């Protein structure tokens, strides 16, 4: 049965029904965004065309717009240093942006590690590598706490010594050195040790952005969940499959269709890959469970209450 299913690739049905472009739209837009941002940083050092200076930790666009990474500034604050005005303005702009569009939009639309871990995930599926280590998806929040603790204890930005995210981005712009080894390690870890391991379980940068975007209005929503034919393509393609389950499947329990979990990266791959167009971008406030579902849920609850008493 399972073997049978795997003869079809993820999203193949979507390609057949919607065409290649609609089945890859958000993926392509995402790659354009990731590459475009990287290119904006690179045309400076490569061609002397200074659109953006700096790197993802802090950058100055067109010599006017400061942008700063909240995670690194938080660490710096914990060491006891109060930054100058430009960094504070930069971090405020970034925080407000991700507060609105979803914190982990950083992960799927900006972060240079994402293509690496996406590639590892894709290859893992192609090679049929199964199993591996198991840890809680909350590990990342523990690691986030740990990095802040380390900053406090050592008085330095200790995590920056090993952080693959800033190491890769800084490396691409200022000279990679042996940073490629760290990136390769992340790739190998995702490929052999843990499916979607780095971004889905461990990375504290993603964890920090998830917390920032906890209440973001822009969310993916399973509006047409009644049309779901249980092909499971969205679960297979999603880097954070846990976030889909309740909004898609628990209409009967009165759960609304909006994917509220802040671990969702707003990557839109589930939208692409669903042949029934169940998913779309929407607002977190359009989250009423369908009337039928609510009614069913309400009656179920009342019977439960009745049986308990």
């Amino acid at each position, binding site marked *: 049965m399972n073997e049978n299913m795997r003869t079809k690739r993820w999203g193949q049905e979507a390609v057949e029904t919607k065409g290649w472009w609609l089945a890859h739209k958000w993926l392509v837009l995402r790659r354009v965004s990731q590459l475009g941002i990287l290119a904006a940083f690179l045309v400076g050092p490569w061609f002397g065309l200074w659109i953006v200076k700096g790197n993802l930790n802090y950058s100055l666009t067109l010599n006017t717009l400061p942008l700063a990474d909240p995670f690194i500034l938080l660490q710096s604050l914990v060491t006891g*240093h109060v930054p100058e005005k430009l960094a504070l303005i930069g971090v405020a702009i970034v925080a407000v942006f991700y507060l609105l569009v979803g914190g982990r939009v950083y992960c799927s639309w900006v972060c240079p590690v994402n293509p690496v871990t996406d590639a590892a995930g894709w290859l893992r599926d192609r090679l049929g590598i199964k199993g591996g280590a198991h840890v809680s998806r909350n590990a990342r929040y523990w690691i986030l706490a740990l990095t802040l603790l380390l900053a406090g*204890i050592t008085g330095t*930005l200790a995590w920056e010594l090993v952080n693959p995210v800033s190491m890769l981005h800084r490396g691409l712009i200022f000279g990679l050195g*042996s940073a490629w080894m*760290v990136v390769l390690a992340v790739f190998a870890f995702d490929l052999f040790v843990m499916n979607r391991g780095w971004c889905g379980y461990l990375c504290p940068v993603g964890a920090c952005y998830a917390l920032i975007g906890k209440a973001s209005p822009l969310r993916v929503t399973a509006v047409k969940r009644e049309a779901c034919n249980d092909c499971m393509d969205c679960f297979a393609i999603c880097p954070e499959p846990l976030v889909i389950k309740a909004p898609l499947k628990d209409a009967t329990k009165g759960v609304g269709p909006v994917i509220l979990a802040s671990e969702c990266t707003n990557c839109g791959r589930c939208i692409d890959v669903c042949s029934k167009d169940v998913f779309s971008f929407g607002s977190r406030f359009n989250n009423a469970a369908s009337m039928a579902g609510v009614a069913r849920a309400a009656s179920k609850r009342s019977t439960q209450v009745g049986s308990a008493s």
Partner: protein
Amino acid sequence: MDSAKKSVLAARRQFLLDAARMAGGVGVLGLGVGLHAKQAKALPPAAIRPPGAGPEQDFLGACIRCGMCVRDCPYNILFLARPEQPIATGSPYFVARTGPCEMCEDIPCVKACPTGALDHKLTDIAKSKMGLAVLVDKETCLNFLGLRCDVCYRVCPLIDKAITLDLRHNERTGKHTIFEPVVHSDQCTGCGKCEKACVLEVAAIKVYPVKLAKGELGSHYRIGWEEKQKAGGSLVAPEVEHQYNLPEGMRYEHGKGLSSGPPGTMATPEAGVDSLRSVVPNPGKNAAPAGNIPQNIPGGGLSSRMSDDAPR
């Protein structure tokens, strides 16, 4: 009922186990990163921080490794450390021997720094303390070999302040002068131009991070003459006027030596000084009685210490 209780217990045990595993894993990770961070705190001797950087410990907490300073340095001397280097990854540095700081008057690197890791209060580049130059090898420095190289001295942006040429007798030839380059830590900015300019294969003068280059007195030490100046007078009161036991009609004045003064101007020598005097061999008529001269007197103390015929 019983099985439900059992499964609750099992779930609880599983939860505790998971929590312990998580704590263990994260703890080991933390230990690793923490130890690595501790190691990375020591700056290697050849890496000099840009102007305005505070003590290494503070700098590593304040600098967010963005590279804005690198970008705005017009001489492109700054680099961000790569992971394989023994410098905290991503932090900016320069190497004096290959690219010294040109001490820009408007200090663009400091202005570009968004965090203040490079202190924005630094507005006069001559007041920066990036490092400290040290003449590390007197055996190869051409000036010590008796030549007039002077290159380090000539290129110093703070010539005659940060670096001076101090003259001393060339003992080897017996008739020449050695022009010793001497760096003064209160003025040297650590820009590294001297190290860059040194004509040797390997520079005899090198710039080190201040912490590596500078000695430090024990906190209980007090420099006598400084304290005296601060207090506006001797602290070991009452200071006794120095007495010399000299032949009738002779006078000794500090800096001038012996002279014949009007008789009767000298006070009668005291017993204590008299007894001290007796153990010092009688100096020649024109030589200063070195045994009685405090060693820090310019002109007097030094020369008597250096010349071989002075009593020790």
